[in-house]
C-alpha cells in the first residue's frame, strides 16, 4: 500500500510558521504513455491533497499529470494550538491514503 513520508515539527512556539513536507509513494501514471504493444496506459494519478489542522482545512492542492512520481508537496502553516494535523491524498481508481501527526504548541 501507499507509503507516505511526512515531516511535521513535533513542537512549535505559538504563532510560529512551520513548514510541512510531504511525500507520498505513487507512480503518477500520466495517461499520455503507450505500452510496448502500443496500447495507451490509462491515467492513474493522485488528484487531490488536503491538509487539516484540528479539523479545519489549511491547505488543499489539485494535482495534474505533470506532477512527478511520488508527489512531494511542501507548504507552511501557523502553529496556533496543540492538536493533530491530518493529511489526505485522493486519486484515480479509488486511491485514498491519510497520515496524522500531533503537534505540541507552547
Amino acid at each position, binding site marked *: 500500500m501507499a507509503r507516505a513520508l511526512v515531516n511535521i515539527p513535533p513542537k512549535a512556539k505559538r504563532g510560529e510558521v512551520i513548514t510541512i513536507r510531504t511525500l507520498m509513494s505513487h507512480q503518477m501514471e500520466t495517461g499520455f504513455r503507450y505500452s510496448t504493444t502500443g496500447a495507451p*496506459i490509462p491515467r492513474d494519478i493522485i488528484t487531490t491533497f488536503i491538509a487539516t489542522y484540528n479539523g479545519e482545512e489549511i491547505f488543499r*492542492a489539485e494535482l495534474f499529470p*505533470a506532477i*512527478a512520481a511520488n508527489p512531494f508537496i*511542501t507548504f*507552511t502553516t501557523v502553529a496556533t494550538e496543540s492538536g493533530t494535523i491530518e493529511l489526505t491524498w485522493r486519486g484515480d481508481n479509488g486511491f485514498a491514503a491519510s497520515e496524522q501527526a500531533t503537534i505540541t504548541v507552547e
Partner: protein
Amino acid sequence: MPSTCKPSNLTSRRDALRLMGAATAGYALTIVRVTPLAATPADMRTAIEKITGGAKVSAGRVHLEIPPLVENGNTVPCAVTVDSPMTAADHVRAIHIVTEKNPQPNVISCRLGPRAGRATVSTRMRLSDTQTVVAIAEMSNGSFWSGSVNIIITLGACLEDLI
C-alpha cells in the same frame, strides 16, 4: 447570419477586414484543436483564462524558483513564493502553475489562506520540453499576479523507456 454577410451591410473596408479576421481566428482555433500532442502557448493562455476567469494578470510579486538548466524533466524541483503579508485582510488565496508545452498545461492548483503564514509552496514536476513555466497567484482582493521562468530541459519527461 446572412444579413451581416450581405455586401450592402459592410459600411467600410474596415468592417470587411474585421469579418475576415474573425473568420481566420475561428479557423486557427480549429487547427489548434486537432493537434493535442503538446499544449501550445495558446492552450496555456486558455488555461490561464480558465483560472482567472478572464481577469487581468499583472506581472510581478510571484517568484518561481526552478533551476534554469534541468537534466531530467521527470523530476524538476520548483518553489513558488508570493510577496504577501498573509494577513486576514491581505493574503494569497490560490497558487497555480501552468506550462507552455506539456501535453496538458496545468501542473498544480493550491488553495491556501491566512493560516498559511507564508505564501510558499514547493513540489516536483514533469517537463516535457524546453519551455516557459508560469506561476499565477490569486490574491484575497481578487487580483492576479504572475511570474515566469524559462527552463532548458536536456531529457524531457514522457520520452522515457516504455514499460
